[in-house]
């Protein structure tokens, strides 16, 4: 583990509702640098919603979220894009662009960051080598298996060297062997210094991942996670 004394993510009494439905209720927690966090719980517990609040796909209804010192309540426009570049996001449904090759899908992150073409080629080749997909760089996503697509998604997530990896049910659509490969990749990324937050209800993943577990039940932290409450008493 790296420097665990500095919270990279802090949540203070966060609530999220969709209409009348409460998705998250009074969540307060700290996540430290270079932690490997498992966000667990049954379907509908609020795991994906919690991740979405972090990368601003959804706004917080009440409470505050601070990522790397930035209060998400106070950013808008371009700053949202810059914040997202600090995350590597992996989705259950991969979210690869079907009309772009594997290379282009991974390169997209670096293009968005304004990197030079030569550096993009070097980095994309490097991350594709890491996920062992270098030989498929000219292929289109739909010609790949689910496991291969998710490996490309992992490559895309780490291409921009983000500090935080958010993985939302990354093995949800994969067979156990492919899921094992993805978990190994995530552990490797963690070993290289990234904070990994993995939302899953996959038992295999929970048993083999290690790291700290945050268990959600009906949008609330389970009692054993209450010690995750922000050290300052829950106020920003």
């Amino acid at each position: 583990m790296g420097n665990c004394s500095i919270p990279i993510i802090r949540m203070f009494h966060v609530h999220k509702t969709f209409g009348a439905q409460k998705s998250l209720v009074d969540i307060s927690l700290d996540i430290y640098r270079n932690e490997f966090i498992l966000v667990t719980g049954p379907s509908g517990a609020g795991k994906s919603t919690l991740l979405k609040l972090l990368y601003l796909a959804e706004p917080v209804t009440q409470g505050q979220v601070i990522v790397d010192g930035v209060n998400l309540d106070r950013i808008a426009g371009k700053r949202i894009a810059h914040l997202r570049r600090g995350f590597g996001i992996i989705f259950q449904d991969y979210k690869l662009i079907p009309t772009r090759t594997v290379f282009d899908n991974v390169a997209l992150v670096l293009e968005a960051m304004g990197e030079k073409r030569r550096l993009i080629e070097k980095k994309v080749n490097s991350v594709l080598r890491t996920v062992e997909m270098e030989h498929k760089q000219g292929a289109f996503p739909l010609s790949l298996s689910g496991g291969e697509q998710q490996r490309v998604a992992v490559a895309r997530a780490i291409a921009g060297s983000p500090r935080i990896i958010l993985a939302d049910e990354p093995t949800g659509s994969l067979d156990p062997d492919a899921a094992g490969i993805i978990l190994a990749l995530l552990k490797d990324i963690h070993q290289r210094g990234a904070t990994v937050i993995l939302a899953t209800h996959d038992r295999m993943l929970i048993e083999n991942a290690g790291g700290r577990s945050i268990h959600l039940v009906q949008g609330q932290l389970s009692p054993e996670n209450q010690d995750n409450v922000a050290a300052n008493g829950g106020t920003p």
Partner: protein
Amino acid sequence: MTSSIRRALRDMNENRFLNGVALLTVALSVLIAGAFSLIWTNVDHWVRASETSIRVLVYLKDGATEAQSHETQQRIREMDGVMKVQFIPRAQALETLRAQLQHQASLLEGLGENPLPDSIEVDLKSGRVHQVASIAGRIGSLPAVDSVEYGQQWMGRFAGLLNLFRFAGVVLGGLFFIASGLIIANTARLVLYSRREEVEIMRLVGATDGFITAPFYIQGLILGACGCGVGLAVIYAAYAFMSARLTSDLASGFWQIRFLSLESIAVIACCSIGIGWIGCFLSMKQFFRK
């Protein structure tokens, strides 16, 4: 920027039909605006060339005194648009006629008295074709003036028609440019909607709206520029064809067609490229507001 241009060209290639329709519409707009401009330029040039010889002939009343003649000349000189006034005494007019008749001058021998009146030749300043009728009217109302003649009575009406023609060209060209802008906007919107998911993914990986929209703006500019190029090329081809035909038909070179001036081409190109940009701007604004 290179990446945006590459993405714009790739998008255009993937949506060839939509972009082709948009390009043709821009080309059609340029063709209409350009054709009107070309016709107007040439007719206007011809009218201006004709204007240099606009002359009004003023015949004085029989019995008009020298003082009245002087006063009439003076009042004509003071009129706006008048360049030159020359008094032609009736005797000089007869001599001129005699010289013009040459061998038939003997016809004039039988005349007892000079039948020609004193007259005044009035040359107008160039660019006053639309004032000919009003100047002639004012001269005609002077007390010593018997009648007024000018060979270009039709020119005033023609100048009015020319202005109407120019107005129609501007309106029609403008309408077509607006239609082009809407079609480009629609093209961009259709492509954007077909790529909603892609746009969403781009946003999630940290792409700014500027990065996402840049290729669309570049496409708009390319459509505007290419449409302009195609439209102007067609006009030039038509011009070259007509010019060759007229030159062979009228060997004297009396009528020489001119192509659009650089200023006109620049204005049309700016409108065309500008409309491409505006079309995209409208689409992007609407899409990203949602």
